[in-house]
Every structure is written in C-alpha cells, then in structure tokens.
C-alpha cells in the first residue's frame, strides 16, 4: 500500500473514530446533564430523562456500533485494505 493511501486511509478512519467519540460523549454524558428538564416530558409513563438513561442511550450505543462496523468496513474496501 502506497504511503499516500495509508495517510488517506488513516485520516478517514480517524475521522470516523472522532464522530463515534462525539456521539458516545453526547449519549453517555451530555443528554443526561439535562435530565431534570427532560423529565418534564412524559411518554408512555416514562419521564424522558429517566428513559434516556434506562433505555434510550443504550439503544443508541447498540445502533452506533453496528453502523460503525459497516462504515469502517466500507472505508477498508474503498482503500483496498479489507481482509479477503
């Protein structure tokens, strides 16, 4: 693999990593900082702030990881470094 390609590959990989890290920070921390105001909203009996910590963020984490696996794989294929 040419050095230039390597840099390009790593830049894309790193960008994806930072996007994931940003989403992780949002669902892991930021949203729960607003729990008191979110609790004003009640859906199906769930105060929304409570819901986000009990289920919402967890669902987001699962979806994020499947999305990440696909996305990173397409980067691998784009640069021809995927495994056979």
């Amino acid at each position, binding site marked *: *693999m040419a050095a230039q390609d*390597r840099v390009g*590959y*790593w830049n894309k*990989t*790193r960008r*994806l*990593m930072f996007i*994931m*890290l940003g*989403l*992780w920070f949002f*669902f*892991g*921390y930021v949203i*729960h*900082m607003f*729990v*008191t105001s979110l*609790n004003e909203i009640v*859906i*199906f*009996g*769930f*105060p929304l*702030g*409570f*819901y986000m*910590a*009990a*289920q919402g*963020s*967890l*669902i987001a*984490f*699962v979806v*994020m*990881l*499947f999305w*990440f*696996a696909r996305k*990173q*794989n397409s980067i*691998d294929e784009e640069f*021809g*470094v*995927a*495994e056979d």
Partner: protein
Amino acid sequence: MATGTVAAGKGDFVSNLGRIYTIYTGGFIAFIILMAILSWLGVPNRIVGYMFVGFTIMIYAVIGILSRTMQVGEYYVAGRRVPAIYNGMATGADWMSGASFVGMAGTLYILGYDGLAFVLGWTGGYVLVAILVAPYLRKFGAYTVPDFLSARYGGNLARFIGVVVLFSCSFTYVVAQIYATGIISARFLGLDFTVAVYVGLAGILVCSMLGGMRAVTWTQVAQYIVLIIAYLVPAIWMSTVKTGIPIPQLMQGQALQGIAALEAAQGIVVGHATPFSHGGYNALNYFLLILCLMVGTASLPHVLMRYFTTPSVREARVSVAWSLLFIFILYFTAPAYAAFAKWTMLDLVASGLTPENIADKASWMFRWAAADNALVQICGKAAVDAAAVAAACAEAGVTNIAFANINLNADMIVLATPEMAGMPYVISGLVAAGGLAAALSTADGLLLAIANALSHDIYYKMIDQNAPTARRLVVSRVLLVVVAIAAAFVASTKPADILAMVSWAFSLAAAGLFPALVLGVWWKRANSAGAIAGMIAGFGVCLYYLLGTRYGAIGFYEMWSGLSTATPEAIAKYTELKAAFAAAAPDAQAAAYAALDKHAQTIANWWGVKNLSAAAFGLPVGFVVMYVVSRMTKEPSAQLQEFIEELRVPRGKTMMEEKTA
C-alpha cells in the same frame, strides 16, 4: 492423539453452531417445563433446586470436556475461528458477572435513577472497545494483553507492569465471582458456605482446564442462553401480572407511574426517578462513575481477550456490536425488573402492612432474614419472624410498617423477586441456575486471563523461551488450578469489601492500562519510557486513592483535609471523635478508633469524589505522564513506527506469529 475426534469434527462443529445451540435452547426450555410439571406433581422444592443447578453444570462440564485440546492456538485463542455473533454471546456471559445478574436490579431498586450510572457505564464502554482498541489488538494477533504492551513498548518491563495490573484487577474480580457462586449454592442447595465455594470452584475448573479458551468460549455461549432466559422470565411474569402485557421494558413506564403515585401517597419525598439524590450520588459522582466504568470496560483484559478469537479484524468489530446487543438485552431489562419489584413492594405496604399481618402477607421475608440477618431488616432489626418484627417495631414506635421501615439488601432482590411476586418455586430454581451461569462464566474468563498471563507472559516469554508446547500447556493448566484454589480460599474467608473490590477492578484497569493501550495505537510518538511511567503513575495514583480513602482514611484525611468537601458539622464531629479517641481508656480505645475511622471514611476524599471512581484521578494522571515523558524522551525507532502503520491496516496476517508446535 487425545484431541483427534474433536479436532477432526471442528469444521463441522463451527458450521453447525446454529443448529447445535438451537437444539440446546429448546432442550433447556423443555427441561424448565419438565421441572414445572414435577414441581406441580409434588416433588419437593429442594430437589427441583438441585436438579436445576446439577443439570446446567453437567451441560457445561460436557462441553468443557468435549472441547479439550493440546494445541496452543486452540488453548489461547480458540483457534481464531469463533464467528462474530457467537463471540458476542460468549462476551455477554463473560461480561455479565454474578454482580450484574444478582445485584444490578437490586441496586436500581435502591438507588433509583442514580443506579442507572451502572447501566450506562457498563454498556457505553463497548463503544470505546470497538473504536479504540479491539480491532487493533486482533490485528496484532496477541495471545494476551501484556503481549501487545511488550511488542509496542519494547520489552519485558512493560509486559511485567501489564501483568501486575492485570493480576490486581482480575484477581479481586474472580474472588467476587466465586463468592457469588458460593452464596447461590449455599442458599439453593443448602450446603455450608465453605463447601459451596469449593463446589463452585469445581464447576469453574471443569469448564476451563482441559480446553482453555476454546472450552470457555463454547460453555460461555451455553451459559449466556441460560442466564438470559432466567433473567427475562420473572420480569415478563411480573409485567404480565401487573399490567396484562408481557413486555416489561415497555410497561416499565406504567410501573414508574404507579411508583410515583404510591410514593406521593406515602409521603416519600425523594422519588424513584429523581436524579442525583440517592446514596450520595451527586451529579459529579454520577458522571465520574459512568466514566470510570466505561473506560474500565475498555481496559479489562478478560473482555479484550475475547476479541482475539474472531477470524478477522472485520469480524472483531462486528463482534463488539453483537456483544453489546446481547448485554443490552439484560441491561435494559434490569431497570424494568427493579421498577416492577419496587411497585410490588409499595403495593404491599399500601395494602396496610402491620407487624400482626406480615406473617400472612410477606412470609418470604422471614426465610431470607433467617438465611442472613443483613438481608431483610424491618424497623432496623433482622426480620426473622413475626415476633421479631413486632418487637422491633414496638421499640421504634411503628404500628403501620412504612416503605422506609423495610430495608432489603441489594443482592437479594433478584433472587427473592419470584417469592415476592408469588411465582411458583420452579422460577426460583431457574433464577438460581441463571445467577450461577452468570458467575461461573465470568469466573472462567477471569481465571483464564490470569492463568494465561502467568503462563504465557511470565513463564514462556520471560523465563523459558524454549519451553516446548506440551510443557507450556501443562504449566498453564497447573497455574489455572493454583490461581483458582487461591481465589476460592480468599472467597471462603468472606472478605468484607467484596462488592467494593469489584468496582475497584474497573478503576484499576482504567488507570493502569487504558492510556497505554489507546495511545499505543493512536499516537505513534508514544514510546517505551512514556508508557512505563504512565502505567506506573496512573495505577499508583488510583491505588493510593482507593486504599487511602478506604483503609487509611484517618491519615488520608489529615494529609488532604484541604481538598476534602467535609461540611463544618462533619469536621466538628471528626475533631470530637479524635479527642474522644485520645482521651479513651485503654479498653475503650479500639471502639473509639473504629468510630473515628468510620467517620473519617465519609470525609476522606479529594473534591468529594467517591472511592468507587478512583480512576477519575488515575486516568488523567496516566495520560499526562505518558504524554510528557514520551515527549521528553526519544521517539520510537523507524522499525517500530512501521509496526504501528501495519497495526492500523486490517489486511495481512496477524503480526505476531507464535510457535505453535
């Protein structure tokens, strides 16, 4: 060759996994139904309990024996042939310990919203595993986590420090698992606790000793299936009874409404859903605990090593996603479990509970209190029978027992829920089998992580590089047994701080390993000196805070009183207790010291950070020291930089080729 049959049938086994585990799941469900019928026909509860525990352990033993191996690659990384989805299931069982299964819903019951820090921390950590660490470790092709540290940071010093961190976090964790198996066997099989611990030990060894990672992988998949069924059934049952709809996760909303209404009616001010107000979790400690648990997840060697077993880097990434999905199934049920249990209890209290009618309404409490005084307390005393409750409540001046008068231990709530909600005994047996599966599977993974580090890193890599394969595998097995017996011995002494120690494992792993692992992949400039200094500093600060605030609280407070968030009243009380200790007569000194120490533990802290979140200090220190020392010393050689380039690219063979014959 002893492994002939299994090795030859291996291809068949992997391609038939779906069928094998479907039949297994069907068989397990049929077994539950059979037990229900037997129970209905009048077979005593005790026999049903024995059959649940005996049957499941027998299955694990059969899998363990069928998976025996004498090949190094099979023993250490299951031949790197475990498909992503099955590795995900095995990781789920590896990850969800006795504490998750038995203790999590109970913690949520008691702490309400603030307990959700555990749910968030123990799931969100997998995002870090997937994006920062696991795929790269898989590409490197390590057998153990210290293997990677040694290759990346040139030499055995980094490897040795890695082993020290690994050992200290995994050993306390495995002691807790064996303790949990002892508790469950003692309660459901009626064995003496010490005997029960060694029975649990036998169950663990039979799974892991003969087949190493290969055997552990396939038993963990089987254990996942048992534990998830055992967790979901009571939750679905409660949801159906209470709301008529068998989806506890969804109907949790209705339960929360019910709880809020009953809490308001009973004058409970701090509600279940109120944030940052239970058990000393202010917002700072809530978020720091989430951080420590997440980062710890991404650093615990027994979790990371599961991703060494996938066939490719791509599968390793997908496998992390599957792992989280399987873990998620339990973790998003836990808050519902807790809510339904709490709703049931509040209802019980609202129905007018008094010392006179408690024997009719909730006699299950007496059985648990009789098993262990600390499990159920009413009006501040162990609720062993109606007379004890009446006496305690009369003393406290309570005529109607309020919710606040009933003190349930977090660890009994899941195990007692079937009785609390009036389910048949067969569900209790199922829950016991599930709790045992959770504790055994985690213990297997941890023991293997420790034994592999000792045999592969210390014995093979550091002591005898020419050791023949057969001897390496024998050494590995002997060490596994030795470590297991040592852990069982420690567990049988019932160490007091067992649950605290489990949480410490996360902080220790996070502070000791995370910076070195992450910067090793993502920062080429990180070098040997930086990593070694960073690991020692991070781990050291973390350990100092953990031990200092817990076991040396008086000295810690005296030294750092300027940083403590103690209130003026707490400081005054401290001065008073200290004076009392100084003035105490010789025979009263021990008691005075104990009182002083107990109080000091509540105020010995830096900026009010709980002992549980010690990595809040160790982690940044580790990163900063590693950065600064790396910058101050020479950059890694061109050869090593090429190594890192190679590590970042999925294509190509694993980088560490082991001598396997």
